[in-house]
């Protein structure tokens, strides 16, 4: 579904990603783990067209997207939930969700998707008229994921969905991520919480200093001694 071939992304003269190659098949949950500053967020931003790679290729559903505009990438079926949620704090929950479908013209289907999201996150249905900025951290994360789902993604990119949330809420968010995956959406997830990310994923990639240093099934990464020592605190 998504093939990243040897991409290099720069911030000015600083090379943030060094020959990154990643494959994601349809139906998978794939985790990208690594320390702070390893290049995980830049990888997601490169895929969604926010910081396009200077060299290399990214193919999504067989089409090259490394030079495509972000809105075109969304329209092709690839939606990004950014780190820190970035919901619209002044807009209501409902308006935030409508923004996720801003580029769509199929009103009847948008209504169906809103109903689906309200069933997935009943708390958002209760708070539909409330301003986004007044929600708790967990609710804002649910809203950010829901806003992305309103774009009807085939592939959902999630940047640190557990960031700043209480353990109980994190567990709830990850259960919902797995549920979204079971309903047919492929997920590429980046997390500093490696244990949590790998337990929910099929496969994983380990990133250090802008490079992929290891890739394997999630089970094997969880039992890998180096990964245990460096990322799982065992």
């Amino acid at each position, binding site marked *: 579904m998504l093939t990243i071939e040897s991409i290099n992304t720069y911030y000015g003269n600083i090379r943030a990603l060094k020959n990154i190659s990643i494959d994601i098949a349809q139906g998978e949950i794939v985790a990208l783990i690594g320390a702070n500053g390893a290049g995980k967020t830049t990888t997601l931003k490169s895929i969604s067209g926010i910081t*396009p790679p200077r*060299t290399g290729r990214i193919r999504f559903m067989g089409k090259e997207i*490394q030079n495509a505009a972000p809105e*075109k990438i*969304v*329209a092709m079926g690839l939606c990004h939930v950014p780190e820190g949620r970035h919901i619209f704090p002044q807009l209501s929950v409902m308006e935030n969700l409508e923004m996720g479908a801003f*580029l769509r013209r*199929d009103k009847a*289907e948008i209504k169906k998707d809103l109903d689906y999201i309200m069933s997935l996150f009943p708390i958002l249905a209760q708070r539909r008229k409330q301003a986004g900025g007044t929600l708790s951290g967990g609710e804002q994360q649910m809203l950010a994921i829901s806003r992305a789902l309103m774009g*009807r993604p085939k592939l959902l990119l999630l940047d640190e969905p557990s960031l700043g949330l209480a353990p109980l809420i994190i567990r709830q968010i990850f259960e919902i991520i797995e549920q979204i995956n079971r309903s047919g959406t492929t997920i590429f997830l980046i997390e500093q919480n490696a244990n949590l990310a790998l337990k929910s994923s099929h496969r994983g990639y380990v990133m250090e200093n802008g490079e992929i240093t290891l890739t394997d099934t999630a089970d094997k990464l969880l039992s890998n001694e180096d990964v245990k020592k460096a990322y799982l605190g065992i």
Partner: protein
Amino acid sequence: MKKKTPFDDIRTEYELDYSKARKNRFASEQQTVSIILDPDIASVFKASESVNKALRALLEAVPHTKHCAEDPKKDHLHP
């Protein structure tokens, strides 16, 4: 009838209509562009500096393209 979009690979429920789009006055001007080099070219030119140097020499050598550098949106070698 559905309006034609400039893209042929976006999903049918989407419509990218730029007719009312305006430039973001808060955004800085795009100064660079990403170009993909074919492997044979990339094996010779390994850094942006060397590519820029070679292309500046080409601009000097082809008078028609030199004055057209003011219109960066157009590929003047392939009009």
